[in-house]
């Protein structure tokens, strides 16, 4: 393979959707669970992102991070720093972060008005 030329080949332009100011809500139950997870430490943030994959093409990605090199917009909700990557802001605007308390399939759940379909486990959407 001619890798000498690889770096001179122009990168294929990635479709970059318009960055929107994401508006998120977090339910009281989810706030309670975040409080439990963060404790008194507010130096960390909740990163709410989207990765490719899953049955429907996009997968939610929730992480507690101190900082990130991803280009994000920062919101403060109920005292928690929430980071939303600009690249996926169009998919996350208007979502509700909820917490479902059940033995199987429980945990943080995203209710997303932008999703046209989602898979059974709720982790992926299109």
């Amino acid at each position: 393979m001619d890798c000498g030329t690889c770096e001179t080949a122009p990168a294929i332009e990635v479709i970059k959707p318009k960055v929107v100011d994401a508006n998120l809500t977090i339910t009281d139950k989810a706030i309670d669970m975040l409080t439990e997870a963060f404790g008194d430490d507010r130096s960390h943030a909740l990163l709410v992102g989207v990765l490719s994959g899953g049955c429907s093409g996009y997968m939610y990605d929730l992480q507690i991070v101190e900082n990130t090199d991803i280009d994000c917009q920062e919101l403060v909700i109920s005292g928690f720093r929430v980071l939303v990557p600009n690249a996926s802001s169009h998919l996350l605007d208007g979502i509700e972060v909820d917490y479902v308390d059940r033995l199987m399939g429980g945990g943080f759940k995203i209710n997303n008005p932008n999703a046209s379909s989602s898979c059974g486990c709720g982790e992926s959407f299109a």
Partner: protein
Amino acid sequence: MRVYQLDSYVLLLSGRDCLQFLDGLSTNKVNGTCTTVFTNTNAKIIDMVEVIIVGENVALVGHNPYKNNLLNHLNSRILQQDVVMRDISEFNKVYISFDKYPQSNNITVVNTFRGWIIVAPNSEDITSTLTKDEFNNYRVEQLIPHQGFEITPLVHPFNCGLDELVHEAKGCYIGQEILTRMRSRNKMGKSLIRVDGEPDDAITCGKTHSLVIRKVD
């Protein structure tokens, strides 16, 4: 040496999330050099590609007429992941060899279920020794599907002999629910088979046999 030049594209992916990105969107477990299939929400094939690890990069080798569909499929899903794609097709030629092909400095050779896939810079002098008819006849005799013939956007991987490329336990990807249901219920539809002569539904005809996709009891 039985060598045939393929009509292929070569995409080079770089970035720390390449393998995870490809694994999340295709049927096989992608954690190194392998063959995998990208499917749509109906589990129909977008393209079958060779994933080749090249240093810190990953090359994707697929069927040229299907390139744009695959690029559209991948492009909108990169989002925040660290993945950069480059089209290096114009710098390389792709061949298949049905005999073990020697590695050399500039030539990348990977062994696949179809044969040895060779990716060589344009400057390398590799000669096709097979005609199109000879290539197809060998495929028919060995039951090897090929893009544009048996492997098309109209079929599932199970229909065209790519069962082995659908990993049984890798987790979610687009089309996975359908393929898993087909396999678990043993309802995988039509299969790729070799038959005598040239029946009306023949997809590829060899000298004495043909490849067809048929319902098999």
